């Protein structure tokens, strides 16, 4: 067992031998990946150091001391993590290093028009054809599809078993004629998400991750890694609060996450500007909003410092953020009232509030709706029983399904 001091000494020695160049250049990055310090908890034979999760903090601290940022690929590299968890040695050899170096980029081919909250009801089919699979169907809400070299694809390979048991997981090459990527026109006016049409797309059997029809289990691992990234849980020290230094906590909360992103106004300043600082209703609403933001921030501090209870705290963060954002929109709309019907250059403030109002739905719908989050908390955290599932032991072929394809581009 390596002690914390030994780890510190080893990181320092490596950083002393390999000072970080100004541009984080490719060679340094490659040396870092090969050294294992880019992913300390990965196995030694696969670009890691084989350290326990609690050492991530130690490694991060030593990198910070040297003015560098520890990549922590063992937290952030969802694709490599999934390959390491379920891949064959051959697949690890083919994918882990290129993913770690950023030569390969991944995207997620999970959701479909007919399979949102009920992901296991997906209808994209993969059919065996010698040593390859032919894929037909449609995926949706895929961000980064255009930049991706590979997609993490889950597809149906058996229609005569219940829905969870006929799915298989693949790493499909994205650059091929059978894959058509179309940006979705979003309510925000932007197009961060895409729909991906697969028409006789090909994936070699060598790119299958895990056993045939065992894709649901692989997916659960992948989703677990995604939660790890979103929760920012890096297995840090014990329980308590770990505030960041040098941040004015009151000011930070007043400039809420969604207005901060767009360089927007502090809602206390906005209330003063519109002459509502003394209005009792406004004061109550703003205090409530501020409170929601603070308690969520404190939950995060507690989750960061809490390796034991962190998981249940992490599960509430998304729901809490949804409430903050939707409340924030209501409170700021109440501040500007009539002006909130405007947008664009006519009223930049209204434009920002209206943009935020849609951004709030990204949180309350994307990555599991608030209602699904409540089911997860109810079932996994509180241990309440699941709803009876009418499609549970029925072959998927016979289950009532949503429309499997629909274009929004």
């Amino acid at each position, binding site marked *: 067992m390596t002690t914390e001091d030994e780890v510190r000494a080893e990181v320092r020695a490596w950083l002393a031998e390999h000072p970080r160049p100004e541009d984080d250049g490719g060679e340094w990055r490659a040396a870092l990946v090969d050294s294992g310090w880019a992913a300390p908890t990965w196995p030694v034979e696969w670009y890691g150091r084989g350290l326990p999760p609690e050492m991530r903090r130690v490694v991060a601290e030593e990198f910070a001391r040297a003015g560098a940022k520890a990549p922590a690929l063992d937290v952030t590299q969802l694709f490599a993590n999934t390959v390491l968890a379920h891949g064959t040695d051959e697949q690890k050899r083919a994918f882990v290093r290129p993913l770690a170096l950023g030569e390969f980029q991944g995207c997620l081919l999970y959701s479909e028009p007919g399979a949102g909250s009920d992901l296991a009801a997906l209808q994209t089919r993969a059919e065996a054809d010698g040593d390859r699979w032919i894929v037909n169907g449609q995926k949706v809400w895929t961000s980064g599809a255009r930049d991706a070299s590979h997609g993490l694809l889950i597809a149906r390979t058996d229609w005569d078993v219940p829905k969870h048991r006929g799915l298989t997981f693949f790493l499909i090459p994205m650059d091929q004629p059978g894959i058509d990527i179309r940006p979705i026109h979003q309510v925000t006016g932007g197009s961060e998400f895409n729909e991906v049409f697969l028409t006789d797309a090909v994936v070699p059997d060598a790119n299958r991750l895990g056993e045939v029809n065992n894709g649901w289990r692989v997916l659960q691992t992948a989703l677990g890694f995604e939660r790890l990234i979103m929760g920012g849980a890096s297995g840090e020290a014990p329980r308590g609060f770990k505030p960041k230094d040098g941040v004015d906590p009151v000011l930070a909360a007043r400039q809420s996450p969604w207005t901060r992103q767009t360089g927007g106004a502090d809602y206390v300043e906005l209330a003063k500007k519109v002459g509502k600082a003394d209005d009792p209703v406004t004061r109550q609403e703003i205090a409530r909003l501020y409170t929601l933001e603070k308690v*969520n921030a404190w939950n995060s501090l507690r989750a960061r410092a809490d390796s034991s209870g962190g998981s249940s705290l992490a599960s509430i963060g998304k729901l809490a953020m949804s409430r903050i954002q939707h409340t924030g929109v209501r409170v700021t709309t109440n501040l500007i009232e009539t002006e909130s019907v405007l947008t664009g250059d006519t009223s930049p403030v209204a434009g920002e509030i209206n943009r935020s109002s849609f951004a709030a739905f990204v949180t309350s719908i994307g990555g599991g709706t608030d209602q699904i989050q409540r089911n997860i908390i109810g079932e996994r955290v509180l241990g309440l029983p699941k709803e009876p599932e009418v499609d549970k032991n029925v072959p998927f072929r016979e289950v009532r399904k949503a429309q499997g394809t629909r274009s929004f581009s």
Partner: protein
Amino acid sequence: MGTFEFTDDHDALRDAVRGFAAEVFSEAEVRRLMAADSPLERPVWERMARQLGLQGLVVPEEYGGAGAGLVELAIVLEEFGRRLVPAPFLSTALATLALLQGDRSVTGEHLTAIADGQVVATVALAEDDGRWDATGVRCEAEQAAGGWRLNGVKSYVADGMIADLFVVAARGPAGVGLFVIDGTADGLTRTDLEVFDRTRRLARVELVGVTATLVTAESDAVERFLDAARAAVAAEQVGGASFALDMAVGYAKERVQFGRAIGSFQAIKHMCADAFVDVESARSAAYYAAWALADGSPEAHTAAPLAKAFCSDTFFETAATNMQVAGGISFTDEYPAHLYYRRAKSGAQLWGSPRAQRDLLASRIGL
């Protein structure tokens, strides 16, 4: 502001208090004390002080206490809050926090008596109009030969019928200060108030020329005490809310209707999930506020009213959820859901209503 972590000592304290509360304050015993004339059992009170050292937790060591801080007190209050402990612990703890603001030459003997379990103490702050801030204080303090005399009316005084010692907020020539009076002093008249929550008794106290000693006349000290009180009450509410949630979830798993446990219905499940989010958030708020105060952080000033408002709302909402989840049985006296609902009401409105605390918070964040 550094890092705060719960330690093994904190865990040990929590375990000890949880075990004690479960043993001594069973539901049956809580109900018996609710019906009794007095919620105080002197032998239990002495055991709490001498065996567990609870009344002396925040009392400095030189006065017979443990010299611990608000976080440790919050742990005890959370655990007592879970069990609706009717013993005058919160009252005495708040009085202790008030005494700690003053000169030890005045407060030392009282702190020692509290730590030893010899006295029940309480704070008399609000008056007939039910305000919990210094500006609402009309009770007058005037300097007289050999000390001070208090004249006025205090109300909503927790455990005011049984208190041996009162810390009274009164208006003197230099503004509102804190004063100590003896429960047996001449000119002090107590009236028992009929209360919705019998686990927390209240009294109205009339003061006519009552001899008093000054604890502190500094407005900063009074405000520091009020913030500490807000954080302490918030911690007690987290305990009650947490217990009510456990009750709701437990019932939702057991109760069968339409051929299945009602907790499998999303209508019930989502109520429980929302309550869980609030209870965990309330826990973060209460302990952050306690720590910020203990640490002397400038954020304590905003965290304390925030925690009081949020934990109050959370306990009240969770207690209501607990009743709604239990359905018809929650309307019976026998089922304990209403005890938590009553406690949630008293905790929310005493020591500063959520509305008043949010208004204070609004001022403190710059509105």
